[in-house]
């Protein structure tokens, strides 16, 4: 390749990299802000009521914020040092960051799930912490992509079924369809984890995936602000 062409290619690659990082920054920032707004926006409701459901709902969004913070951190490392920097790096730092991201993602999903079922299944949150730690360690040390995908799909199906059954058995005076938003949120959070560990799967649909994720978080934030005042 002529040196001029090579220089031009490098320039285009740098521009693409900058755009990609820019999208990543905006995406993560909006989700972290939405999650923290949900967390702080419901503070008074929880302080007054001490309602367990509200407690776990808030914690879910705090963990979403933590997970997305580490997600964007990992993406930065991947952009600058490549995928191997995260998965195969011998440094304890890489493994620790990935563990925190996996644990926070799992706990965000589990807290949201538990906020809905905690009335029927009291004082069992420790089981979800345990499951999140085991899941994160398995993914970290057992590097089999197919097994990893299957674990995530199975987890998603279990949670979605649990939420749906809980919705069917709820005694609320008026039933709404909010459980669908929860199921979508589970799906997109698991896709976020897949996007970090198996980036090729999301590939060219990344922008669509980002936009739908943002839409779900903004819908929840809108509902929370409308209801919590």
């Amino acid at each position, binding site marked *: 390749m002529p040196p001029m062409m090579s220089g031009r290619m490098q320039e285009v690659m740098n521009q693409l990299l900058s755009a990609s990082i820019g999208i990543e920054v905006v995406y993560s920032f909006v989700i972290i802000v939405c999650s923290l707004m949900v967390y702080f926006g*419901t503070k*008074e*409701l929880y302080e*007054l*009521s*001490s*309602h367990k*459901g*509200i407690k*776990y*709902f808030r914690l879910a969004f705090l963990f979403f914020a933590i997970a997305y913070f580490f997600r964007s951190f990992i993406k930065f490392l991947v952009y600058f040092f490549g995928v191997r920097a995260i998965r195969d790096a011998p440094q304890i730092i890489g493994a620790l960051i990935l563990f925190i991201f996996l644990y926070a993602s799992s706990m965000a999903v589990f807290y949201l799930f538990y*906020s*809905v079922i905690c009335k029927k299944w009291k004082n069992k949150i420790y089981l979800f912490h345990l499951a999140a730690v085991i899941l994160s360690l398995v993914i970290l040390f057992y590097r089999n992509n197919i097994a990893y995908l299957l674990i995530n799909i199975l987890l998603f199906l279990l949670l979605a079924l649990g939420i749906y059954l*809980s*919705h069917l058995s*709820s005694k*609320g*005076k*008026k039933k*709404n369809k*909010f*459980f669908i938003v929860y199921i979508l949120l589970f799906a997109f959070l698991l896709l976020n984890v897949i996007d970090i560990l198996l980036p090729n799967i999301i590939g060219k649909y990344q922008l669509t995936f980002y936009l739908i994720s943002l839409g779900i978080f903004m819908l929840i934030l809108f*509902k*929370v602000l409308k*209801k*919590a*005042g």
Partner: protein
Amino acid sequence: MKRERLEIIRDILLIIRDYKSIKRTPLLRKSNLSSQRFSEYFKELLEKELIGEATDSKGKKKVSLTEKGSRYLEKYRTIVSFIDEFEL
């Protein structure tokens, strides 16, 4: 129909608000709870500072609503509607 926890708390706070300050025994009677359940709720409300207990000039202990308790009553509908909306 069985009252929910948040509803019971609201009812107790409403009684206290209506009386401004009330002794424990009439509050128990008006709250429509067994004495054991009433004690549990009473303890919880004191701990969470939704109510306060003070001795009056005659040396009798009376219960009154705190600022946080008034805020609870103001926000009660919002809390219940939030829980319903998000199926918590």
